[in-house]
């Protein structure tokens, strides 16, 4: 029967598109195909994330690669009747190029996809993640077969070392070297751990890989197991990712049934199996040692390194911890060779990096670009520029551990070291774009709010220091800050960085330091002029009446919850600043544009 299928309708089943009813689109498409008796000719497939979340839900038609955007369940009929039956594209569902206003049918001609090279995401949006056969059809488990039948563990490690692959979870430690150290640790039991505890707010690449291509992680873990001499793998995944957990479970079962996990894999005598471990919502568990303690059933508090997990990890045994995206790069490297991989990227950073592009940007989504691509290319070409034609102000990379980069950093190539030199970091790949309406002091406060909540409390610099940083920022945003507070802020930040136990505390002041470095003027205007130029800090805002526009209708005065607006009918009103609570009701109620925020 399968040979008769001439057309595939791929429906995105990622979290974003699911939230916009993509499961109903799938059901409607299947229903329409049935109504027209086409169920043997065209097949609906739910895939992982296509990446272009901004324009979701997405439906892609294969073989002609037509890319439909913002599809609704009600569009299913037209897609089937027009496209599947008559072979005519449904023009109104095609992507419109914002520059020339023309419809673009094929995704590879869209600005969003043109500069991307997909290695880690290569199967996301192409295969049904719940069907191992589709993964096998795209060279799945070929790398594992190759390693087991043709290589020694040392050969496998050498390929990964030569490829120059570095950890994609944040630290950027060379992956091959980590494997080698774990291999050399002598013990009767070793573990491979996949860190899928994606905790950065605004980063969702690991979840998309797990949801869209779960087998790649299993295959890579088995390869790693062979290389380091481990027979057990554990995936530490957030309990908040139910869809990823479901698909991983399905994938593990399928791999076991096919003899790709379990005992005597592919008849080579190699044993390896994988289990899931659930996180419970703690950002610090992204740190290796904290993650291991959490897997052991304890509080996820980090411990001092050395000993490194490669020597003494889970249950005291040598443990190799890699992140999801790092693993997703392993099978292609084995299949295509280290030279192929090392040729992509720059001298110090090889391959590609996945970024979750979000915030005030036109094309929110998941992208994968070669290392060395500039921030400008990412934000303005792939990302399509700033939303609503506003002005670019900053881009935050590296999550709560990273920093805010500005206009002057736009042309630096994205690499581990260049980002650190600019005062930020790669992190796991969150990239949040901010525009002129964002107050950078508030952004710093937002991140500190996060850190204070997520600090495990074990070491005092992080537990107490970050709390003090947050308090000072709170004072500044309330308009009560002094110049002395600014120097305190800076000093304390350095102390926390220098004296904290783990990566969380050592990087948590970065958002403060980088905003102070790049947006000093804004700090000064909060402290000296008592003004928030972006109009974000409520306490620094003043609602005033514009006398020329006020007709004295009394709408504002009647609705003010604290009765701070006075004035007679048909006469200009007045807002008492001492009583005003800045709720904004007057602005909402005024029909004559007579209220302004200054």
């Amino acid at each position, binding site marked *: 029967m399968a040979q008769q299928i001439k057309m595939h309708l791929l429906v995105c089943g990622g*979290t*974003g598109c*699911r*939230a*916009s009813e993509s499961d109903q689109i799938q059901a409607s498409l299947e229903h329409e195909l049935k109504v027209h008796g086409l169920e043997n000719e065209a097949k609906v497939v739910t895939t992982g994330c296509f990446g272009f*979340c*901004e324009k*979701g839900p997405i439906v892609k038609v294969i073989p002609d690669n037509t890319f439909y955007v913002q599809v609704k369940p009600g569009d299913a009929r037209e897609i089937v009747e027009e496209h599947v039956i008559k072979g005519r594209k449904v023009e109104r569902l095609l992507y419109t190029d914002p520059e020339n206003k023309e419809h673009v049918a094929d995704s590879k001609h869209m600005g969003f996809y043109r500069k991307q090279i997909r290695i880690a995401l290569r199967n996301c949006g192409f295969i049904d993640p719940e069907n191992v056969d589709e993964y096998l059809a795209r060279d799945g488990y070929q790398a594992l077969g190759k390693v087991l039948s043709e290589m020694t563990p040392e050969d496998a490690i050498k390929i990964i070392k030569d490829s120059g692959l570095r950890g994609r979870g944040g630290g950027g430690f060379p992956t091959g070297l980590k494997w080698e150290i774990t291999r050399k640790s002598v013990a009767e039991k070793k573990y491979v751990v996949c860190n899928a505890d994606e*905790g*950065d*707010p*605004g*980063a*969702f690449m690991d*979840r*998309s890989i797990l949801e869209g291509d779960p087998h790649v992680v299993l295959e890579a873990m088995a390869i790693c197991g062979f290389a380091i001499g481990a027979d057990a793998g554990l995936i530490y995944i957030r*309990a*908040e*990712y139910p869809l990823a957990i479901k698909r991983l479970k399905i994938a593990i079962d399928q791999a076991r049934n096919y003899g790709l996990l379990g005992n005597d894999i592919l008849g080579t005598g190699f044993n390896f199996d994988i289990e899931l*471990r*659930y*996180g*419970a*919502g*703690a*950002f610090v568990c992204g740190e290796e040692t904290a993650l291991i303690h*959490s897997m*052991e*059933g*304890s*509080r*996820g508090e980090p411990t001092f390194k050395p000993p490194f997990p490669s020597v003494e990890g889970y249950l005291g045994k040598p443990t190799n911890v890699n992140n999801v995206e790092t693993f997703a790069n392993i099978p292609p490297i084995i299949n295509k060779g280290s030279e192929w991989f090392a040729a992509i990227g720059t001298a110090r950073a090889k391959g590609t990096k996945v970024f*979750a592009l*979000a*915030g*005030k940007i036109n094309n*929110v*989504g998941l992208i994968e670009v070669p290392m060395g691509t500039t921030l400008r290319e990412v934000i303005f070409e792939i990302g399509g520029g700033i939303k609503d034609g506003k002005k670019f102000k900053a881009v*935050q990379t590296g*999550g709560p551990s990273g920093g805010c980069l500005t206009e002057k950093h736009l042309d630096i190539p994205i690499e581990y070291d260049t980002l650190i030199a600019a005062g930020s970091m790669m992190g796991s790949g*969150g990239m*949040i*774009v*901010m525009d002129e309406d*964002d107050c950078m002091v508030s*952004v710093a406060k*937002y991140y500190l709010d*996060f850190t204070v*909540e997520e600090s*495990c409390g074990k070491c005092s610099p992080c537990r107490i220091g970050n709390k003090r940083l947050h308090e000072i920022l709170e004072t500044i945003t309330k308009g009560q800050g002094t110049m002395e507070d600014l120097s305190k802020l800076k000093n304390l930040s350095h102390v926390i960085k220098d004296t904290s136990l783990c990566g969380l505390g050592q990087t948590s002041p970065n958002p403060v330091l980088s905003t102070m470095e790049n947006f000093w003027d804004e700090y000064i205007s909060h402290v000296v002029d008592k003004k928030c130029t972006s109009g974000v800090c409520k306490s620094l805002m003043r609602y005033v009446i514009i006398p020329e526009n006020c007709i004295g209708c009394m709408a504002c005065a009647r609705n003010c919850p604290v009765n701070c607006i006075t004035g007679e009918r048909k006469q200009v009103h007045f807002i008492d600043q001492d009583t005003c609570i800045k709720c904004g009701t007057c602005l909402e109620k005024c029909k004559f544009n007579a209220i302004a925020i200054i």
Partner: protein
Amino acid sequence: MSSIKIKLKEKDIAQIDEICKSFNNEPGELINVLHKVQTTFGYLPAEVQDVVANKLNMSVAKVYGVVTFYSFFTMIPKGRFPISICTGTACYVRGAEKVLDEFKKQLSIKVGESTPDGKFSLNCLRCVGACGLAPVVQVGEKTYGRVSPDLVKDILKNYE
């Protein structure tokens, strides 16, 4: 954290016992046990933690330490319709705070609280991975995208 006192029934204790047994009463499985128990009871009151500690042969302090460490575990019962506002960075820069304020205002409760009738509870979560739809609000299993403060009333109306 919580001052709610409850009395566990025989059958509840038996249920916890069963969950612990399914993990071989292994202390290392504490987090998995707590996940299961919370799914069953909806939350982890002190009395439940007492039983878990007993079954896994560890101190109540250790169990309490783990429960309070992880934000996924809660000692307060959630409402019938738990509302979670995503306060991840993407949602934050697209106005999640204003949406949160509106929910607080409409429901007259703070974050972490439930309405007196037990219908709604309000919580924040960090990034659900649907940044393209920011700001995002989840009510139970249902996700609402591109929520603005003036849509809050309409969302709540769906649950009347």
